[in-house]
């Protein structure tokens, strides 16, 4: 079943002059068509300025399309009466955890969302517990968020969204500011939510290694969707990705280079284990 249906949307940023008059427009999204099924894990790649974040902001109606329509769980984002429902259906997590945490204690921060939705107190606490457990931060519930590491803060931010019971979570570069362990923690959390809780995940990232777990990868350029496929299909096209200012995981690049040097290896190898196994066959 489709949870997100994007029908030919375009979005123009308008630049205003000194007197507040519109001077020029920049087309950030240009005729994007996209269908995301419930329970999918979709990764969106694209260089800075390719329109990824603008698209993401449409999914929970922070931005509304200039042209075209977008439906979240059957609801049109263009209708103002749907706004609350849409924001509860699709939660968003941003890059910098420090800008997203408002509570002075972890559990209060996570309870903020459901409290705002008017959830009864008893249920708020249930949801706080359940969501902190799902991101592995329950032991820290009474801690102050500013004493946590970057990865832990980002997991608390994710728990804050999970507590609102969204069907879909959009994460805009959630790992850009984290160290390798923090990155792993966050990706593991996202995968668990997707696989165990069946939450639809849309992940925007510049780290190619994080994309290999996705069901589907979408590549954006100049506001358009230019490639779509499984991680293996996408990462088999090393040279094409480079044209879009992108990259492949280091192990995929190594395979590509070894293949160019004459070894019989398939393109689109995604993990260390996979490459090691294939090289063993050549011995």
């Amino acid at each position, binding site marked *: 079943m489709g949870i997100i249906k994007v029908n030919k949307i375009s979005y123009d940023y308008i630049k205003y002059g000194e007197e507040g008059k519109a001077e020029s427009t920049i087309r950030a999204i240009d005729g994007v068509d996209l269908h995301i099924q419930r329970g999918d894990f979709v990764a969106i790649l694209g*260089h*800075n300025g390719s329109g990824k974040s603008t698209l993401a902001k449409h999914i929970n109606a922070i931005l509304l399309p200039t042209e075209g329509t977008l439906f979240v769980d059957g609801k049109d984002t263009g209708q103002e009466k749907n706004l609350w429902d849409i924001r509860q259906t699709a939660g968003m997590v941003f890059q910098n955890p420090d800008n997203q945490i408002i509570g002075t204690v972890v559990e209060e921060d996570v309870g903020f969302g459901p409290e705002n939705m008017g959830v009864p107190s008893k249920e708020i606490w249930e949801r706080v517990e359940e969501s902190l457990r799902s991101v592995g931060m329950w032991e820290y519930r009474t801690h102050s968020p500013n004493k946590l590491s970057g990865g832990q803060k980002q997991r608390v931010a994710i728990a804050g969204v999970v507590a609102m019971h969204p069907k879909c979570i959009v994460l805009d570069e959630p790992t850009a500011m984290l*160290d*390798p362990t923090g990155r792993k923690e966050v990706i593991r959390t996202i995968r668990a939510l997707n696989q165990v809780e069946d939450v639809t995940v849309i992940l925007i990232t*510049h780290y*190619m290694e994080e994309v290999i777990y996705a069901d589907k990868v979408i590549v954006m350029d100049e506001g358009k969707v230019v490639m779509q496929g499984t991680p293996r299909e996408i990462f088999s096209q090393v040279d094409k990705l480079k044209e879009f*200012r992108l990259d492949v995981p*280091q192990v995929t690049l*190594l395979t590509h280079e070894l293949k160019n040097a004459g070894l019989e290896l398939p393109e689109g190898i995604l993990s260390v284990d996979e490459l090691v196994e294939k090289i063993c066959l050549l011995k």
Partner: protein
Amino acid sequence: MPVKIENLNYIYNEDTAFEKKALENIDLELPDGQFIGIIGHTGSGKSTLIQHLNGLIKATSGTIFYNGENIYRDGYKMRELRNQVGLVFQYPEHQLFEVDVFSDVCFGPKNQGLSPEEVEARAYEALRQVGLKEKYYKKSPFELSGGQKRRVAIAGILAMHPQVLILDEPTAGLDPRGRDDILNQIAKLHKERKITVILVSHSMEDIAKYVERIIVMNAGTVMYDGVPKDIFGHYKELEEIGLAAPQVTYVVKALEEKGFDIDTTATTVEEAKAAILQALGK
């Protein structure tokens, strides 16, 4: 100019309930012209350490010598030090403030008291060095993309002609090409101007590709200090402190475990490729 750090300690909020040791007994020598990487998990003391190098933070105890002079002695000209040790913070583009790109880059050298002609010459040179096209020079910094803004911010520091250039995660949030562009420009500058470059990064792949020496920080101390091959040989210990080795290092290690006679010191794609081809007898 060489930097020498002797027995440096730094304590946050000393003598309060929030007292926290951020740096403990740091001894380091940073000779001229090295390209050094600093790695460590969030909160390991990396950023605190680099802020000592241009005097933004004063050590609780210990000494720093810049070009043989103790920077904590009475009458030391801190301003001179800041002119020579350039620090590019995380997300430096948040600090752009001038009306256009060119004026922003001029700000540093202008404050150094240089003549207007010299200031302009420096700004042109720095903007060229970071590879920003001339058509952007008169634009507002806010009209640029993330990668372009980042370059302007770095150019602002370069225009001051620092002898030591410190960059705190200069590529966070940039797309892969933007990341490569900026790091390649920095590597080129390092080569041409023979300045010392200190790169703080969470990307082990980038560190392995560019630097000649790695300093690993953990819990406020220097845990390892050496060449990339040796440092990433400790990948198990690195994982315990929240770090890792580059992906290709794991490939060669795994092949060794599978019984291949292979050189396991590879830290870059090129090195791993050579090692694998050799092990297969190609």
